[in-house]
């Protein structure tokens, strides 16, 4: 029971991280039809921005304070990067979805290589507030405190994005613009800025995910974003390509399945559990994956 509780809570924590990583990817794909391969690089940018902020702030400040500032900085950096990428790289290739994917592939290669050139390939340690590194004992299980933070942040991001999409005019314009940008303009609405906002949002979400993941991992490294990106992809596919609710459900499912399989199943099954889950979903419900929007 104790073990089960621990596995469930850490599984949820993992799911929360996956959701955070996938959410930016999911909204950008769901709303704009752009598969943002540079999402991993966005996450990396967030984690490095956080790390640089924390190590450059006066060490007199408490770690928690510095972390909070770092979160703000990372989100801002992510948003700005997202904005620039959309304006400079994505916008001129509107309608050319494959080309957009290609540009982001190039961007992700180049930026990871650049980070490697500047900060080196080795992981750098990041500071973690005392409390987040500790545990809370519940029913004998030592639950790591940081997982609660991840879960809460993920929940907040989820609800925030959901509200934005379904209850705001911005969401409506975005959904219309995805289908037929020209016609939205022909109705007198400026879609450019709307799309830029989406990318900035995606970038901010990615950066937040990157920063939290570096808190989880205890280090930052250029390859980190990429390794998380694979899970983000799988989560987005299982969740039904761009559905935010689907993404959330899939993230939790993947996190739990992975932890449970790693604990209870033979070694080897745990390893491939996620891909098996994907294949299963694919065989059983291929239609749910055909690419519904928002």
């Amino acid at each position, binding site marked *: 029971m104790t*073990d089960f509780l*621990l*596995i469930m809570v*850490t*599984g949820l*924590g*993992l799911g929360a*991280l996956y959701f955070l990583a996938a959410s930016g990817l999911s909204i950008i794909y769901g709303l704009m039809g752009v598969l943002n391969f540079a999402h991993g690089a966005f996450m990396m940018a967030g984690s490095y921005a956080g790390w640089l902020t924390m190590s450059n702030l006066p060490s007199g400040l408490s770690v928690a304070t510095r972390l909070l500032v770092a979160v703000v900085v990372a989100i801002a950096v992510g948003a700005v990067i997202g904005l620039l990428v959309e304006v400079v790289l994505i916008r001129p290739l509107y309608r050319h979805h494959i080309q957009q994917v290609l540009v982001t592939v190039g961007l992700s290669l180049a930026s990871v290589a650049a980070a*490697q050139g500047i900060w*080196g*390939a*080795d*992981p*750098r*340690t990041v500071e*973690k507030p005392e409390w987040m*590194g*500790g*545990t809370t004992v519940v029913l004998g299980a*030592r639950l*790591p405190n940081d997982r609660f933070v991840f879960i809460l942040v993920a929940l907040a991001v989820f609800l925030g994005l959901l509200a934005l999409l379904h209850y705001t005019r911005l969401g409506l314009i975005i959904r219309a613009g995805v289908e037929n940008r020209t016609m939205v303009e022909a109705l007198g609405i400026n879609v450019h800025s709307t799309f830029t906002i989406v990318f900035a949002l995606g970038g901010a979400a990615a950066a937040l995910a990157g920063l939290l993941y570096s808190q*989880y*991992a*205890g*280090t930052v*490294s250029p*390859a*980190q974003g990429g*390794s*998380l990106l694979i*899970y983000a992809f799988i989560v987005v596919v299982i969740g039904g390509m761009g559905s935010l609710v689907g993404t959330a459900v899939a993230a939790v499912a993947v996190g739990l399945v*992975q*932890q449970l399989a*790693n*604990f209870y199943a033979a*070694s*080897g099954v*745990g*390893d*491939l559990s*996620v891909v098996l889950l994907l294949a299963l979903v694919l065989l059983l419900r291929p239609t749910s994956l055909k690419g519904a929007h928002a």
Partner: protein
Amino acid sequence: GTPGEPGAPADQGTAGAGGGTSAAPVKVGLVYSKSGPLATYGEQYRQGFTAGLDYATKGTGAAAGHQIEITEQDDAGDPAKAVAAATDLIGQGHSIIAGSTSSGVALQVAPLANDNKVLFISGPAAVDAVSGANKYTFRSGRQTYQDVATAGSMLGDVSGKKVTVLAQDSAFGKANIAAVTAILGAKGATVDAVEVPAAATDVTPFATKIKGASPDLLFVAWAGTNAAAMWTTLEQQGVFETTKVVTGLDIKPTHAIFGKASTQINFLSHFFDGAADNAAYQALQAGLEKQGATVDLFTNDGFVAAQMIVHAIEASDSDVDAMVSALEGWSFEGPKGQLQIRAEDHALLQPMFTATLKGDGGNVVPVLGDTLDPAAVAPPVTPFK
């Protein structure tokens, strides 16, 4: 004409003719990671090599009257690039190749040495299979077996003790598990393994399993980027409270990733700042200082490689078989102490160390524990195939 040949005789003819009076230079190729994920290891290797060459040639850069010409090539950690680079160097008449930061590179370049009858001195690559790979392949660093044997020594008498290996489910991890089982199992310990899939993001399930089994010794073989998270989880789940934990000490920049756990871990080490003290060590330290560097894990491997190369050239400037005979069984003093190249499989018998980390201001620094005799950690002989 013959493909690949036509221009060759003329080419080499001029080069050969030029070296009529003074002794011709000997060309040595270094194929190692200047870029890529193991660039830091590669850099240390190269720094050590420079210092070692200086030391072994007494500052002349020549051995037995032959100038030693070094050509460096980057393999970026990619065996394909390494094979291309080695082929290129061999084609240009390099009879000695050294380097191989990663095990993958070492294993792919070793057969080339055999195919083409050139001397290959593998670098930081730890994979056991380099020893005994073939007649032309040597190594200048330690191998996994020696790491594990060192870990085993920390438990004293292991007979009847329970030993668990926490390793990634990869070739590196499997090699460690196999080594622990072979060495400590033979001494009467019951060994089991917790293998962590490469795809696992979170190690809590594995930490829980270990906690539940509470072994006497936990040997951690971990080479991934999420090492910090792994240590934090072991610490959070209280593994250190019941179990003695041993792992290898990596390069300096990683000493901080053990976090809170750092002072509770017992480290085995191949080499670190302050592990030994002798003439070679001082030469290494001085040589590194000149380059603005400090002693670290793989500077030893570069230094020793240079020593071996100079020794080989002193035996012959072109007859590779003579070089091989000169190196086989050679015993000499390297920065970490007395080393011997075992003739049967070219394993490098060497002392090993244990260490702990202690806080030093905001930093942690290693403190020497025991120095193990080369014989105590010598791997079994794997004769050439």
